[in-house]
């Protein structure tokens, strides 16, 4: 065990979740003859892109010490707007969808910033309220896209690779750079790690919180638009439980709920882990209910292992 610890703590620290991703990847390659093919792997990327995109924004929000439970509802609203407004104009529909996500994020961020009410409560309220708005807007009906360019986009590819997968990977790269290379990213860590010290260092905490809520709102809306284009439709219940899947992926990736710690690379690992498990078990024809039980058990086990590996055994040694 100690050598394993040393391995994880080394300079080129490999995140535990990636070991897990590689392990299940190899496992399913042996267990199912259909698993290891370009078609299936790009398929996994497309399947995970929805939750993956939201998880990118959620990582920043969580490192910042907040959480956003309203992403599923935001996704649903954006999808309905993107399909529902197409009659007027395609461009308008997409812009309105993305704008709605950013606006909802900004409102969440503003309330958390200005009132100091816990983000969990604020976004829980937003989750219920926005879902209500979707029903008001759609009148409880599903919208179907009559625009084939829109529904074809979701299935289009560049070479052998689906456009959705490319968008997801590009966004991942951008958010990784934002988090690790920009001042905003650094301050996101600082605010999550110690809000009081951050204020005293002259960091404008509210501004960073708001930016992160806007980012997650944007990604939820983008995920909604892309999901609608995949399905060629939007249902009022679209995005239910997505906040839970997203948070699961982010936490699997090593981001701490308490803030101040996490990474986009870890989140990518968490997203892929969930995607591979669902896909692999599906190919092995594991019944859907068992899949949920297994995913739940794996989430808890991974976090236990992570906690054991990172046990602060050297904490007492001071220099």
């Amino acid at each position, binding site marked *: 065990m100690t050598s394993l610890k040393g391995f994880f703590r080394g300079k080129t620290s490999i995140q535990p979740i990636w070991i897990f991703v590689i392990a299940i990847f190899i496992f399913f390659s042996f267990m199912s003859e259909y698993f290891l093919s370009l078609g299936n792997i790009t398929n996994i990327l497309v399947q995970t892109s929805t939750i993956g995109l939201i998880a990118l924004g959620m990582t920043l929000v969580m490192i910042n010490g907040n959480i956003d439970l309203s992403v599923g509802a935001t996704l649903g609203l954006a999808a309905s707007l993107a399909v529902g407004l197409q009659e007027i104009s395609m461009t308008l529909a997409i812009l309105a969808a993305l704008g709605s996500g950013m606006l909802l994020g900004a409102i969440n961020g503003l309330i958390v910033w200005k009132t100091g009410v816990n983000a969990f409560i604020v976004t829980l309220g937003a989750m219920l309220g926005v879902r209500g708005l979707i029903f008001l807007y759609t009148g409880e009906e599903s919208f179907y896209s009559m625009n084939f360019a829109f529904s074809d986009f979701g299935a289009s590819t560049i070479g052998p690779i689906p456009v959705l997968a490319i968008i997801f990977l590009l966004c991942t790269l951008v958010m990784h750079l934002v988090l690790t290379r*920009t001042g905003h990213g650094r301050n996101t860590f*600082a605010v999550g790690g110690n809000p009081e010290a951050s204020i*005293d*260092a002259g*960091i404008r905490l509210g501004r960073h919180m708001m930016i992160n809520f806007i980012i997650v709102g944007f990604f939820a809306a983008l995920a909604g638009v892309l999901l609608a284009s995949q399905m060629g439709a939007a249902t009022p219940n679209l995005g239910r439980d997505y906040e839970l899947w997203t948070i699961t992926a982010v936490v699997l990736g090593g981001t701490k709920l308490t803030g101040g710690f996490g990474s986009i690379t870890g989140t990518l690992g968490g997203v892929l882990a969930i995607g591979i498990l669902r896909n692999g078990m599906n190919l092995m024809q594991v019944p859907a209910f068992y899949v949920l039980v297994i995913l739940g058990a794996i989430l808890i086990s991974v976090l236990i292992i992570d906690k054991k590996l990172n046990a602060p055994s050297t*904490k007492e040694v001071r*220099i």
Partner: protein
Amino acid sequence: MNPSQENHSQDSHSQDSHSQDSHSQDSHSQDNLAHGGAQKRQPIDAQPVLQLKGITKRFPGVVALNNVDFDVRPGEVHALLGENGAGKSTLMKVLAGKHQANEGKIILGGEEMAFENPKHAKRAGVVLIHQEQSLVSEMTVAENIFLGSLPKKPGNRVDWRKLREDTEKILATLKCGFQHDDLVGSLSIAKKQMVEIGRALVFTPRVVVFDEPTASLTDHEKPVLYDVIDSLCQQGVGIVYISHRMDEIFHLSHRISVLRDGEYTGTVNTADTNEDEVTRMMIGRSLELDHASKPGEFGETMLEVRNLSVKRVFEDVSFNVRKGEIVGMYGLVGAGRSEVAETIFGLRTPSAGEVVLDGEVVQFRSAHDAVVSGVALVPEDRKDQGLILGMNCRDNMTLASLSGVSSMGFMKSGEERAVYDKYHQAMKIKTPSWRQKVGNLSGGNQQKIVIGKWLNTHPKLLILDEPTRGIDVGSKSEIHTLVKDLAKSGYAVLVISSEMPEVLGLSNRIIAMYDGRVTAEFDGDSVSEDELVQAITGMAGSSPPKAQAG
């Protein structure tokens, strides 16, 4: 509970300890301290109640304790000294069952013990009073004292009546002005500490370990603690007292033991030694404390505070700081010193008055405005306000000056490293690498990182709030020298401190505050300790008390 507190009124140097009145407590202590210098306590001749023999504790890659011996006699205060990282805390954690020693014996009352956990040690009579308080603010005093050991009636129901009676017995020993049903969150830091001590009294303790108990107390509040320690001693409890403050140690202890780099360097009787010898034992050399001269050349006025007030916090505060000058702000905790600094820094909104910085009237609406305009505040509480403990050294260092090491929002890691290297060398910060998390550094090095962080904002005015609190002697003198050098190089420096030697050693001028008002301004070289104490206790005119200068 040991019911022998009644003896306490016969305490040799306690005239009026039944009184809850803080002023009489205070004059009693001053009497205490006035004699303290002359009459050091003689060692108590008795069989030790506790012995640690040949304790060795290894952590991966480090020997934290190497063959350490230590013993405590009943009724004695045994001071344990050492620089940060010398192994004091580890030794005490071994003693209290938090760590298990790799080698060595713990003998309590003639019996060899192997404590598996803190609860085990507590039941055997060894209690550690923590440096950081671990109380539940939302619960009452009684519930906190008996946390984890609430008296029960059959059926696992809490026996509230017994809880109240037992708590009142303990509170009678502590003689502190609060009730069993007060919420802990509503108490002052000093009173919270009393609750923490009360917790130790639940199990009849044989050895009580105090780890830096006065770190968050004012000179005013310490006598209460000393009384409690005295009363424990009279009950035959052995006390281990860890502190950085020499004056306290020489005042309280019977014997002094010293650790250096995890090794036991020796034990001396307090009556036969002096600060110089103890310091030499601690750091292996004789330390010339604060011999660097004070700054002497002043430029124009950098900060002028005119009639500044914040309602119900402080009132009508006026003073100025010139370039190249160190101004000390001295007063008790609660006198409003930190609040004045926070107001200058934009964290509080003044209700009246103005702040003039470098000739311009400024009204900061946030800390950000203040930082941009060239004010730096090294806060009182390093861990809560100064540092992001989970971040590495480099990132903490550049936290307040990110715009200086980035362009278009993107960090330039080369320049960031250069900033870190510069202050790392200039201040002799001891870290293995810039990747080290600051949470793993000692207090002195952490404080240097905070100071470096602010220097990199190139401030016009540097405010230091309790710059050496909880820092070992070696680092303390380094930080003092650093502050003087900064002033000499042209910074305007405002130092807030509760330690008189620090204020006297650093300041060109001293502003004394009492109860939200500036009571006097002194020349730092000619003021006497008596004058200062009078000014900060609001007792000007009455009998001059003696200060506790080291």
